[in-house]
Each structure stands twice: as C-alpha cells, then as structure tokens.
C-alpha cells in the first residue's frame, strides 16, 4: 500500500511540530510524491541532516513503501 499525502504529512508534522508540508502528486497516481517541508527544526542543519530528519519521521518507509518521494527542505524565513 502506498502512503497517502495525508499520512505522509501527518508523519512529518508528528515528528517535526510546526512544520509546513506541501505535497505534490507528481504522476497523478497517488504514489509518486514531491514534498516540500519547511520546519524551524532545520535551522543550523545542512541538507543531508535536514533530509535525514524527514526520513526519520517517516520511520524507515523511505526507500521502501515510499520509493519515490522527491524531497525539498527549507528553514522558515
């Protein structure tokens, strides 16, 4: 079962309270997602660390059920 946009957003905001998550369905198939995550917790972290924080929020599903999540991270301005 692929993850829905809501499930992905919930997992991320549960781990990173206050995060803004914008989901885009890349292929229109509910399976290929782009997520843009803006979170205050990213401050002072490099990109690899920021992405890892999101992957951790997804609890090991990245690369598995979530094989195609295109991720962009940002610190709120």
């Amino acid at each position, binding site marked *: 079962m692929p993850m829905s946009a809501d499930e992905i957003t919930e997992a991320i905001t549960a781990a990173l309270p206050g995060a803004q998550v914008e989901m885009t369905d890349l292929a229109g198939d509910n399976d290929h997602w782009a997520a843009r995550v803006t979170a205050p917790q990213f401050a002072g972290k490099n990109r690899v660390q920021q*992405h890892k924080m999101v992957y951790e929020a997804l609890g090991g599903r990245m690369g598995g059920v979530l094989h195609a999540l295109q991720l962009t991270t940002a610190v709120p301005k």
Partner: protein
Amino acid sequence: MSDTNAKISGIVGENDVVLFMKGTPLFPQCGFSSRAVSILDHCGVKYESVDVLQDMEIRQGIKTYSDWPTIPQLFVKGEFLGGSDIMMEMFEAGELQELLDEKDVARAE
C-alpha cells in the same frame, strides 16, 4: 567493519567523485539516477559510477554506510553529499559547481 563496508569505503576513498546509482550513466535504470547523471554531466566533472543493481551487497550496504535510505548517492572526496534531490537543489543554487571547484576535482575530458 564488514567486507561490504570495507569495499564501499575503498571505492569512496579511491575516487574523487563517485555516484552509486541504478544502471549506468549511459543507461540509467531509474529517474532519480538519470537526474543525478544529468547534473554531473552538466557540471562537467570526471566521475566514477557504481551500478548497485549489479551487486546486492553494495545495494544494501551503501544505505547503511551513509545512513541514507535511497539511491542514487553522491560522494565527493570521501564525503557523502546526498541523493538526487539534494544534488538538484545544490545545482540550481550554483553550490554544487562551487563545491566541485573548491574541492578541485578533475574535469571530464
């Protein structure tokens, strides 16, 4: 250190720029790998590629090695830089080209 870890460590240590990918630069087997190859080609650097589809141990081992769940993965001078999304972000910001210049990696012929 496991054999696979030692093998990966060797590959990463011996090559200035190395891309672990699915398929080869001429025939990438996934969209993310294809994107990573295009970015490196645009940067005009010489790089080594490892097709993880040819080696199941490396395919799993690389994820543990860098604590990163997906492939492709880019290493520059031994340092893990990220996957295709990070490469794209850095490339669009001009940071990847800068970093490759700073690290003084060889240009593609």
